[in-house]
């Protein structure tokens, strides 16, 4: 039952979108004042993970490269931040761009050989990297503190703001997350949109632009790693401690699960995916401690049946029932991107694993 019908891009439509964002922003800002410190710290963690998940979505959803090793970049960012805080006196905020830069370079470095690997094989290589991560951290213990880990002071709220520490940390994270998401949304519309349409409309022609595609894919790797790095640095703020055991395979699995549960090739999906991986394990543990893994695994599986295109897909179709957006959609990059991205993302991500054999 359609509540409302608007013309695409009409002032009404724009106002509706604006209202939506405003509500979201309001909710986000009010959170730390309505919830206790523990709950706020959970939301902060969700925001941090959302940044990492967004990065992974750029890689998996939009450029079709499966990575099971996102946790490795997350760890790299976290340790970069922690080592800087521990060994030099840099202010907390500076560790964020530092971690982003280090991870961007690492991502590029991995992105280059990754061009040669498709689907399943890239997944395996990144899986091995994820497994190797805690081991490597321990090996370079002169720098990383090995198994003892590194403890660093957390950012404290400045007196003037009158906020509790957990609230301050939440806002700090929000202030970093918001532009990051904004940037990603913009990027998706521009670069990715063109590349996707090119690839979809005429593969051969797109292939002749091979250089462009390769650089796009490599950049996607670097960028996704940079996002993970930012998340990693924020993670250090939230925990005040890093150890090899903080970055096991579970982290990489969780990020990937979050990408798919939230919605492949969506920007907002990262937030839902992050909320999923923060709250569902706790909830399943509360239901039954012994069975928590069973419940979590089952929930993940069921989500895949119910939310084929992730939570975002569900919400979009639900929203579409309430608000009908009329108007021509051909040739508009935004919608082309939406249609192509959601439909093709999964297939391309898996291409190479199940191709025709003689």
């Amino acid at each position, binding site marked *: 039952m359609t509540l409302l019908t608007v013309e695409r891009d009409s002032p009404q439509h724009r106002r509706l979108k604006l209202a939506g964002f405003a509500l979201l922003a309001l909710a986000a800002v009010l959170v730390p004042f309505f919830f206790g410190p523990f709950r706020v710290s959970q939301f902060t963690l969700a925001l941090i993970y959302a940044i990492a998940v967004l990065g992974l979505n750029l890689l998996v959803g939009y450029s079709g490269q499966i990575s099971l090793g996102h946790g490795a970049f997350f760890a790299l960012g976290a340790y970069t931040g922690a080592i800087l805080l521990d060994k030099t006196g840099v202010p907390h905020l500076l560790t964020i761009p530092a971690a982003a830069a280090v991870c961007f370079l690492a991502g590029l470095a991995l992105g280059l050989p990754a061009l040669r690997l498709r689907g399943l094989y890239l997944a395996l290589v990144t899986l091995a990297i994820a497994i190797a991560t805690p081991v490597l951290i321990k090996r370079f213990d002169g720098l990383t503190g090995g198994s003892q880990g590194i403890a660093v002071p957390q950012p404290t709220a400045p007196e003037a703001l009158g906020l509790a520490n957990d609230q301050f940390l939440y806002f700090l994270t929000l202030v970093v997350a918001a532009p990051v998401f904004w940037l990603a949304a913009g990027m998706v519309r521009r670069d990715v949109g063109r590349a996707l349409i090119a690839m979809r409309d005429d593969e051969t022609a797109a292939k002749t632009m091979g250089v462009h595609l390769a650089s796009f894919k490599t950049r996607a790797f670097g960028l996704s790693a940079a996002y993970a790095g930012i998340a990693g640095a924020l993670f250090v703020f939230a925990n005040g401690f890093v150890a090899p055991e903080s970055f096991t395979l579970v982290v990489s699995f969780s990020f990937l699960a979050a990408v798919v549960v939230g919605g492949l090739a969506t920007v907002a999906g990262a937030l839902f995916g992050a909320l999923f991986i923060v709250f569902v394990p706790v909830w399943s543990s509360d239901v039954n401690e012994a069975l928590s893994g069973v419940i979590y695994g089952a929930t993940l599986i069921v989500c*895949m049946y119910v939310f084929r295109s992730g939570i975002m897909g569900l919400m979009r179709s639900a929203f579409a029932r309430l608000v009908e957006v009329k108007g021509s959609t051909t040739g508009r990059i935004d919608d082309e991107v939406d249609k192509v991205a959601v439909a093709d993302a999964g297939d391309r991500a898996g291409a190479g*694993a199940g191709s*025709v054999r003689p």
Partner: protein
Amino acid sequence: MERFVQLVIDGIAIGSIYGALALALVLIFRSTGIVNFSQGEMAMFSTFIAWGLVEGGLPLGVALLLAFVLSFVGGMAVERVLIRPVEGADQLTILIVTLGLFILINSAAGWIWGFENRSFPRALPGGTADVGGIRVAYESLGIVAVLLAVSGLLFLLFQRTKLGLAMRAAAANPASSRLVGISVGRTLMIGWGLAALLGALAGVLVAPQLFLDVNLMGGVLVYSFAAATLGGFDSPKGAIIGGWTIGVAETLAGDYIDFIGSDLTILVPLAIIFVVLLVRPNGLFGSPEVVRA
């Protein structure tokens, strides 16, 4: 020289462990086109079932057979109930389902049987042969023999039987297969059932020396993936040779390369996967992919 030979023998012994699970991975891939991340956990679960049957008083042979049958049925059930609903979906969704299965089966095993490690009775003879200073465990020889036999059977299955042909067709092109009358659903179920059975076999072969607990296959999985990649994901004999190669490479590297030492051996399969995929993506024995432009 003697040390080198011993290392190679040790490498083959441990490589057989990787190859055993790799066979199951190859089978599922060859017959369904899916990479099943929960294959190791399914194998562990089957091994626990066998253990439970032995504890319950059944003689080992009967327990193993029963466990194999149950695993086969279980594998089919998993395909029918859990994988079928997402069959048409993209690879990533299926991957997440298998990841979910991984977590679920691991926890379920812990809940049912506890998290302590326990011994598993040996089906193969114990003891060690000593040939001129080189020691080989009879058990390892036995595992090698079983693997070769299974590999041979799989080859026959895929190349010489109608079922095998149907499986290969269903994996490669389900739509066309249906058109020629192949029951794709049934074929997929059988594929999963067989893979689960192979996994169970792998589990009961390695549990005696690795000791049975819920993390039995967790560490093996990535090595087995590397073995399958090296050998070619659709080649059973490739899985075994791949496993041996990785086992030997790991053992030699651990001994001769100081940087690797004993704790960074995980870098060996990583490096091998990288090199193989860059140089010869289909692995040593895999068939080349043909993609219609």
